[in-house]
C-alpha cells in the first residue's frame, strides 16, 4: 500500500513538474518584435477593437466565453463550424479614422501542439477599404503567450480577471518569417501579393466575458511599385 501511495504521489509530482515546465518554459516564448519591423517597405496599419461587444457582428458556437453580438445573431452550432468564430468589425487607420471594415473567420487548428508552445488558430481576414480596395489576409495565429500571460492568470487569480498591459504578435505563419500572406483583390490592391502581421494589445480580461479592453492591429506591407516591376520583369525572362 505504501508503495502504491508513493507511486501515485510520484506520478502527480511528475505530471505537475512537466506542466509547470511547459508553462514556464522560456524557449516557447514568442518574440515580441514584429518580423516586419526590419522591413524597408512601405507599411500601413489598420486598428480594430478586439472586444466582442464593440464589433459590428461577432458570433461563435454560443457556448464560449465571448458571447455573440448582437445577442440575436445566428450562432455557429453545427459540428463542422463549432470551433469557428466570425467577426465583422470597423477598421480604423493610423489617425483613428474609419477606413473600412474587416471580416475575420478563425478556426482552431488541428496543428495545435502545447508541447511546443503552439495554441494555433487558422484565420483569414477579408479587408474592404472603400477608398482603396479589397484584400485577403491568410494566417495562422499562435495564442500560447496570450493564454499563458493573460487567460491562465485571470483564471487562477482572485479578482475574476486580469488587468495590466500586454502586447504581442499573434501571427506566426505561413510566411517563413512568421508573417501572414496578403492577396490583393481589387482597386489599388489588385494583383498585390505581400505580407502582414496581426498583433494584440490587451489591458483587461474577464473570466466571464473574455477580453474587455483589447485592441488589435493589422500591419500590412506594401511592396514598392519599382520592386513589383523588377519581379515581374525577372519572372518574364526566367526560363
Amino acid at each position, binding site marked *: 500500500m505504501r508503495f502504491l501511495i508513493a*507511486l501515485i504521489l510520484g506520478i502527480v509530482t511528475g*505530471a505537475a513538474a512537466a506542466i509547470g515546465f511547459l508553462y514556464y518554459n522560456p524557449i516557447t516564448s514568442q518574440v515580441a518584435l514584429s518580423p516586419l519591423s526590419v522591413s524597408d517597405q512601405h507599411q500601413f496599419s489598420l486598428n480594430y477593437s478586439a472586444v466582442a461587444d464593440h464589433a459590428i457582428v461577432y458570433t461563435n458556437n454560443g457556448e464560449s466565453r465571448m458571447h455573440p453580438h448582437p445577442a440575436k*445573431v445566428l450562432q455557429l452550432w453545427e459540428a463542422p463550424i463549432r470551433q*469557428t468564430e466570425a467577426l465583422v468589425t470597423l477598421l480604423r487607420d493610423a489617425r483613428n479614422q474609419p477606413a473600412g471594415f474587416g471580416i475575420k*473567420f478563425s478556426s482552431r487548428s488541428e496543428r495545435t501542439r502545447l508541447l511546443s508552445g503552439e495554441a494555433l488558430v487558422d484565420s483569414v481576414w477579408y479587408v474592404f477599404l472603400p477608398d482603396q480596395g479589397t484584400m485577403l489576409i491568410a494566417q495562422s495565429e499562435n495564442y500560447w503567450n496570450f493564454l499563458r500571460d493573460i487567460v491562465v492568470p485571470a483564471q487562477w487569480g482572485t479578482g475574476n480577471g486580469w488587468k495590466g498591459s500586454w502586447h504581442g504578435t499573434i501571427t506566426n505563419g505561413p510566411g517563413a518569417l512568421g508573417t501572414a500572406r496578403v492577396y490583393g483583390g481589387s482597386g489599388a490592391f489588385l494583383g498585390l501579393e505581400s505580407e502582414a502581421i496581426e498583433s494584440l494589445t490587451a489591458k483587461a480580461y474577464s473570466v466571464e466575458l473574455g477580453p474587455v479592453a483589447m485592441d488589435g492591429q493589422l500591419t500590412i506591407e506594401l511592396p514598392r511599385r519599382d520592386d513589383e516591376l523588377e519581379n515581374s520583369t525577372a519572372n518574364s525572362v526566367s526560363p
Partner: protein
Amino acid sequence: MIKTYITGIVLGVAGVIAALNFVPLVDQHREVSVISVTPNGGNSESFQVNIPMDRIMVGDQDSKSPKPPGIAWPESSMLDGSRTELFKLRNSRNTVIGVASRLAANNDKLGSVVEWVVHLPARGSMYISLAPEAADGGRSGEMRAGTREFDSLIGTVSERWIADTTGAADAPAGRIELVATFVSNKPIDQEESVE
C-alpha cells in the same frame, strides 16, 4: 520506497508528454467532400446557401430589415453602394460545412466588385472574385487565392440564384449556388515527381 516515488515522477512526466503529443487537442469535424471529376480534368465541387435561414448578417445602409436584429451598421458615406453578407455554407447534400462572406460594392474608386470568401474550418479558405455583370442567370469568376487544401489549386467559380419551386411551408425562398472547378497549380512533371 524512494525508488518507487522517483519511478512515479518519471511516469508522470512521460504521461504528460505522451498525452500532449498523441492526444489531439483540436479535432475538427469533417463531412465527406462531395467532389466530382470534370470531363476535361480537374475537380468540381458545389456549395450552397439557403436564403434566408443561412444568412448571418446583412450589412447594407439601405436595408429595411437589418440582420441580425440590433446590428449597428456604420453610418458612413464611404460604405454607400456596398452590401456585405455573412452566411453559413452548405455542401451539395445540404449539410453546413463552413461560413462565407459576400461583398458587392460599387463606387467611383473601385468600380464594381463582387467577392466571396469561403472558409471551411477542416479544409481551408478560398478568395473568389466574380465578374460584376450577371450573365446566363449568374456570375462567373476565379479563385484568386486559397489556403491549406486550396493553396495548390487554381480554378473558376460560378454563382447562381436558384429560386425554390417546391412551395413547401418550411422551404427556403431559394438558394445561392457556388460551383467551383479546380485544377492543380503545379506543373504535371512536378506532381509526378512528388508521387
